């Protein structure tokens, strides 16, 4: 699997693309593959606040339900509402069209705790070995 080097990653298998004070968040290809066919996505509402580690949404596949944890504290700026009608996009293009939310970051220092693509790839290897 290919983890682009233009973004950060979390140990909850999310990717975080930083653009100024806003970050875009999605799940990694690895996470999407582990979940299997995703059939339902629950997203937060605009303006909702989350602390790092809080549950902001839910991914439901044919075999499991997983919480999505905010990789960083902040306020929801945008959600990918097209996922409600076509959740399969996450399986098809997890790192692109399958993005889930955009967060206005409240504490940029938290970004430093996130993994770069090499570290994440290493983390996945450890998890699967």
């Amino acid at each position, binding site marked *: 699997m290919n983890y682009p080097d233009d973004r950060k990653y979390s140990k909850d298998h999310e990717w975080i693309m930083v653009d100024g004070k806003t970050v875009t968040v999605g799940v990694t290809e690895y996470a999407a593959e582990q979940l299997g066919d995703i059939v*339902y996505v*629950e997203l937060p*509402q605009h303006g*909702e606040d989350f602390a790092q580690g809080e549950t902001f949404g839910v991914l*439901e596949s044919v075999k*499991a339900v997983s919480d999505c944890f905010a990789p960083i504290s902040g306020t929801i700026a945008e959600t990918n509402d097209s996922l409600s009608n076509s959740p399969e996009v996450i399986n098809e293009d997890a790192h692109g069209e399958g993005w889930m939310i955009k967060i206005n970051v409240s504490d940029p220092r938290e970004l430093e705790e996130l993994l770069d693509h090499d570290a994440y790839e290493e983390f996945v290897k450890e998890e699967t070995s």
Partner: protein
Amino acid sequence: MRYLPHTKDDIQQMLDTIGVKNLDDLFASIPGELRAKRELDLPHALTEPQLDREMRRLAFKNNVCATSFLGGGAYRHYVPSAVTELAGRAEFVTPYTPYQPEVSQGTLQALFEYQSMISRITAMDVTNASNYDGATGMAEACLMAKRIGRKRNTVLICDTVHPEWREVTQTTLKSTGMNLVEIPHAGGRLNRSNLNEALNDNVAAIVVGYPNTFGIVEDFADVAQAAHDKGALVIVCVPEPLALGLFEAPGNFGADIVVGEGLSFGLHTTYGGPTLGLFSTQQKFVRQMPGRVAGRTTDADGREGYVLTLSTREQHIRREKATSNICSNQALCATSCAIYLSLLGKEGFTKLARLNAARAQYAKNLLAKIDGVKVAFDAPTFNEFVIELPKPTDDVLHVLANDMMYGGIALNRWYPEMKNHLLVCVTELNTKEEIDMLVEKLIPLLCKEG
């Protein structure tokens, strides 16, 4: 059904199989001080004639011959013997959590039919495979409204919704931090101006009774409009769902969740139950709905079949994030309900509702003619209504009961200020003669002296 105890041989065979000498050895892992060192204190076994006599003695303690005008949340209706016979089949009665599609197509289809029929009666998109009863269903509906409304924390509830349902809901919500705010009635109906004052952006839902505890059926289209304008849901509580054979279905006036008591549909009122919680909602809220759902699908070969669907919302998959703590349902009662409704059919359902309303109207008119008696609320009712007596209701009911007649429910039980108010229920089981007899017995009791 057969209930056969283990014989000594059975027990010995089981012990031999697992390699234990006797029962004492089997229970050896239980510390001695925790084990009873004596026989259980039970009466001796009875012979069949002795047992028969004892059961009759107990049965006669029930006042089964009394004429009853009791309603108040549990409504007596005729249960055709086919319901009891079919629902009593061992395939329905004995299996425990029979939801593996490989072996349970009959049960799953019965539940699917039940869901379909309740959805049609309430004019809602989806119905779950049942809750325990109307009261816990109402509490679940409030929790569901909270899940949908997220930060909204208040539920407004008419004080004419069944008092015991409100109590159950209060208990359930106690630990959730939600507020349950009661809206007082005006003349038996929801007080619109009180409601509008209380309605704000923190309200998750408005809960209304349909019919309400006074038997009144009111149009809630305006309430639904007001609720939706403020982003709140409308939960319609239906204690007597037979009323929907005559009055507009809640889905047609904007209900978001409908909960009901299914006791009226093919179940007996013995000991006030068993009860059956009807729970319906709109498609857009289906993932927030509590309980299990039977769905129709096709298998790998394209054959029609039934399976539990949307299980990912439930505890066995979603654990603590499940939509609800409910982990069972009233499958056998729901099956009885499906059989009952299919026997009635669409026309029979409407006819039975009309018959109930007509009998109750007959009683209401006659009772209102008694000197000193008046109809308490000027509002349309279904098969239950409130009259105001010229003296305390408790005294009157006591005399009637000694005369083998349950004349209704004294409303001061739930509304202390209503000392002279009597809630009278009339179903198809109350003949015209019974109604005439109630009136005849009441007249001398309500005469001036006393």
